[in-house]
């Protein structure tokens, strides 16, 4: 049968055979290996991504735990600081009171000592003054007494005593 347009069944079948060889060859040599490699790479990067997301989750949980611990530590630190501050304040107050007491005692002692010193100094001054007065008196007496004055005085005394008049 003469088919128009020079259509030839044998050539069509030969073309089909040729294309089938080409398709199978390209599939085995190029398409499949390249696709496999691409899938392998995709799986590799997916695994990496999953690992990264897991690590991220782990990091986030660690971060949360860390933040929680930090918060706890801060609370603890704050409480300790408050306790220390309180203790320090109390200690300071105690020491202040003690110091005040000590100061008061020192003051009392000092006052006592000062008083004693004053008394002692007054005593000493009195004694010295008495000594000075006695010395001066003695000197005065020594300067004013002589045999004539003594006898005059003695005479005067006798005269007064003889009259029976009281002494002025």
């Amino acid at each position, binding site marked *: 049968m003469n088919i128009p*347009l020079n*259509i*030839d069944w044998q050539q*069509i079948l030969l*073309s089909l055979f040729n*294309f089938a060889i*080409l398709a199978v060859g390209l599939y085995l040599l190029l398409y499949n*290996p390249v696709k496999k*490699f691409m899938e392998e*790479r995709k799986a590799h990067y997916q695994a990496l991504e999953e690992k990264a997301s897991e690590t991220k989750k782990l990091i986030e949980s660690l971060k949360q735990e860390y933040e929680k611990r930090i918060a706890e530590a801060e609370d603890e630190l704050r409480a300790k600081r408050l306790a220390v501050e309180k203790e320090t304040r109390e200690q300071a107050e105690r020491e202040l009171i003690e110091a005040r007491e000590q100061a008061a005692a020192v003051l009392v002692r000092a006052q006592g000592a000062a008083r004693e010193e004053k008394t002692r100094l007054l005593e000493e001054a009195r004694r010295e003054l008495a000594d000075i007065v006695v010395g001066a008196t003695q000197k005065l007496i020594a300067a004013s007494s002589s045999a004539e004055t003594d006898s005059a005085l003695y005479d005067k005394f006798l005269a007064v005593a003889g009259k029976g008049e009281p002494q002025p």
Partner: protein
Amino acid sequence: MKTKKLSKRAVVGIVILMAALLVGIFLIKPVETGVTLPELMRDAVLHEEDRVNFLGIKAVNPALISSFVLTAALLLIAGALRIFVIPKFKYVPGKLQILLEKLVDYFDSLAKTNSPHKNGFLGAYAFAAGVYIFLGTLMELFGIQVIAVSGASVRLPAPLADINGAIALGCLSYCVILSGGVIANGTRGIGRALKEFSLPISMSFRLFGALLSGLLVTELVYSVIFLSFVLPVVVAVLFTLLHALIQTYVLTLLTCVFYGEVTEPPEKKEKKKKKRIAKGDIEAESLGG
């Protein structure tokens, strides 16, 4: 300084050579083949005169030889790539790796996007068909010569510029669609594929017509001597590249779209039942109202 002088000399030499060639072209008398333009074009379509001996078995159209040459060349290249390039593929790809991956990925995603069901084989088929059509069309540019049975020298055309080659690929694409329908939906799939009974004819003749028109336009341009300068750079290279791309895209896309249609799973009966019940309710209400 020396390199500048050398480059100047090279340019002058090339200009003189081109001028000499131009003079030679116009001085030499063209060989009278005794073939008129209509005869030339008829032969480009029907290949009645320029048949080539195929392995001593049969005289065939030169496009069939083209297809076998192309297959051999492609398989050689693919084999070389498989042995020397693919084992050295890296996770961070180089230029050739990117090209190969893009090529495979393009046809794979074309198959997956247009045919979401049972598309494992379709991507590989689209890849082979696409490479065959694109590189086969580019064969026009190489102008490989073979000796015809008549003893004349014949330029190997694109494999699909032959009606037999185009029918083969068109019918094979239809068979792929049909087989996809059978695998996915059984007899329903056959029915769906047979509904598109004109598909093998349209696919075949679309390919044949598109590629033949390119060939005929090129033949026409070359038949006029003053159009044989400069213009073929545009006509032969750009047009060939353009229609190679277009035909590759069209055939692979059409195959994937029709494959997607016939492999689409049928709607569930329950939904239809529910629809019927709902429809019945509405009708009953309207009657009651």
